[in-house]
């Protein structure tokens, strides 16, 4: 097994350069896909027979919610790698993920609230999925709070890595508990399609948006990662050459 690629991935200068090369690819592809997905979802897809045009916010809400969870998982995996093998770049990835994930979570909450408001008559309901998203937001805030409270970078990395791993183990437990809690109290949930068999015209834009959001995350992550590496390695000798145009 050739581990050289693994060691190169762990080297800050290599990742720094790689990130710069990859960002435009992810960025532009994401932009094109997002345009296609939005066109498909907002214009081409037929109105839902129950909610009319109101359901279209799902094309932003569902990918946001999906990404909020995926980013947390990425963060936890990167943190675990950094914790076990003591790879600094992995910690930098985890640190870069957190604000992005928190933003997706916030977006999911805001779009969820906008979606439900016309039907509920209120701006908020304790829908199980929204409640789970809210708790996920608290998990992100706790992670960022812990990082921000520890001055020593290495210690902040390792402590928040333990927290991220504990968090990811808890996410399924929390989700199950909230769903169970909600089933006891029969609160209405409107945030799904009105029909069990979803036509491709509705589904395909959703999948495109999902892919678009994932690539968008990758692009933003790489940009943040470069900033994170710069700040951590600011006294290292390779920085000066790397920043030469």
């Amino acid at each position, binding site marked *: 097994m050739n581990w050289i690629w693994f060691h190169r991935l762990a080297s800050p200068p290599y990742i720094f350069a790689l990130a710069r090369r990859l960002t435009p690819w992810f960025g532009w592809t994401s932009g094109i896909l997002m345009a296609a997905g939005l066109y498909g979802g907002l214009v081409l897809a037929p109105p839902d027979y129950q909610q009319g045009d109101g359901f279209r916010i799902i094309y932003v809400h569902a990918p946001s919610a999906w990404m909020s969870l995926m980013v947390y998982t990425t963060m936890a995996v990167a943190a675990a790698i950094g914790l076990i093998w003591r790879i600094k770049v992995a910690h930098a990835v985890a640190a870069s993920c957190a604000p992005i994930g928190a933003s997706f979570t916030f977006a999911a909450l805001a779009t969820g609230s906008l979606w439900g408001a016309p039907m509920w008559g209120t701006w908020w309901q304790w829908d199980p999925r929204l409640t789970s998203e809210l708790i996920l937001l608290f998990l992100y805030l706790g992670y960022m709070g812990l990082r921000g409270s520890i001055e020593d970078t290495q210690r902040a990395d390792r402590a928040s890595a333990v927290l991220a791993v504990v*968090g990811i183990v808890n996410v399924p437990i929390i989700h199950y508990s909230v769903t169970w809690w909600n089933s006891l109290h029969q609160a209405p949930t409107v945030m799904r399609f009105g029909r069990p068999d979803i036509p491709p015209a509705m589904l395909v834009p959703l999948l495109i948006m999902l892919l678009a959001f994932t690539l968008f995350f990758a692009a933003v992550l790489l940009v943040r990662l470069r900033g994170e590496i710069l700040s951590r390695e600011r006294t290292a000798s390779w920085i000066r050459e790397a920043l030469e145009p």
Partner: protein
Amino acid sequence: MSNVSAATGQPLALAGEEGGPRPAPASMLDAARLVLLRDLKLAFRRRGQLVQPLAFFAMVTTLFPLAVSPELSRLREVAPGVLWVAALLASLLALEFLFRDDAHDGTLEQYSLSGQPLTWLMLAKTVTHWLLTGAPLALMAPLAALSLGAPGASLPGIVICVAVGTVALSLIGSIGAALTLGIRRSGVLLALLTLPLSLPVLIFGARATELAIRGAAYGAPLELLGAMAILGVTLAPLAAAAGVRISLE
């Protein structure tokens, strides 16, 4: 090697020679027993501090009749939630006692260098902490429940539910307590880290208590609560030990 000190010229005493056979190494059980005894002894030397979480719990439950309504029928509806939120907040406050002193005076450092598994010692500390804070809370909970209109028949069930739930809360709390060692004024951060992780315990604990107060069977949520406590016993001390080691680096 000579048996006379080169510096002072006096004969050197070698430990264990006059003392008989070499003392045996301590087993894991010995170590856990000593951790338990030491923490209990220390807690009782500062008895006043032990009462504080209980007083807090009593005061928080008193807030609700004053803020909502003194009618017992209305209070009975919210009693499970009030009891559990109060228990959760009280055990958050009590987490301060878990590792803080030991971190300051070097005891945790000695534990990590003792040759005993640090995870095992963290479990011993957390169990002792529960005996000092969670168990008394479980015994006080019936009194609070009565004041909120719970029927007398439900009290044993309430004790069991709060007892099992506080075990899980102590274990979950030990993780945040270990990770925030060395951070100044970390009380709010500790709460922010621990509360989301404690929500499942809150949900099932409150549900079990609600069923107990209504006189219905509360076995199902109680079992889930117990499962969480067991999961906590296996995983939380690992995370707490990792947190302690990180704080010593």
